């Protein structure tokens, strides 16, 4: 027996709050994933080559963190609309695991390699590819939840 009935959730009882939460979620994940991608593209040597990856990380880190906090908060609000359906969906489960892995990776190995002056080209490329793969797969799994 469920103690929580989604039908009582205000988000399921008006036309504007769910789309609003979705808009906030999408705009702020774009902010965090986009700013992480800037650093990753620099690690791959694609963009902003006159700055070091460490300089770009310092310039973007506040916006990455703000984006993550807001997008996860909005995501939790969205999840309350039908928590059981989310929990039972394989795409959502993958997303949650990948999200934890991506956040831990971003603030440990990723940060260490970006800030180091001595990291090899191979390790920088590998870290950038892992980071981009994780974050992009999180975006994909979020979309796939809605269609599977």
């Amino acid at each position: 027996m469920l103690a929580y009935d989604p039908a009582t959730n205000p988000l399921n009882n008006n036309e504007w709050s769910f789309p609003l939460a979705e808009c906030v979620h999408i705009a702020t994940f774009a902010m965090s994933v986009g700013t992480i991608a800037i650093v990753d593209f620099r690690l791959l040597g694609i963009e902003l080559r006159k700055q070091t990856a460490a300089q770009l990380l310092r310039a973007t880190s506040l916006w990455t963190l703000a984006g993550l906090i807001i997008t996860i908060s909005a995501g939790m609000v969205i999840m309350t609309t039908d928590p059981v359906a989310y929990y039972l969906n394989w795409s959502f489960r993958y997303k949650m695991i990948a999200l934890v892995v991506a956040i831990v990776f971003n603030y440990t190995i990723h940060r260490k390699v970006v800030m180091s002056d001595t990291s090899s080209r191979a390790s920088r490329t590998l870290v950038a590819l892992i980071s981009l793969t994780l974050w992009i797969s999180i975006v994909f799994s979020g979309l796939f939840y809605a269609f599977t």
Partner: protein
Amino acid sequence: MSFTAFFQAVRDTQFFTAVRESMLVYPIVMSLHLTCIAIFGGMILMTDLRLLGWAMTSVPIAEVIKQSASLSGSASPSW
């Protein structure tokens, strides 16, 4: 041809009907769409923050715009 008739004709093509009714193609296209929004959105955000003087202030504005142009799609300044 009205706009509605035009869009209806697009909708009725075999190709877009197949996309609409597919299990995987539609979510893949949507995911790519959102991923690219995140990537160019991040570039434009940092460029705009530089214009506001809130980030990367040690780098000239023209430099930030020029260097991020290939991924964000912003035009290189001609001045």
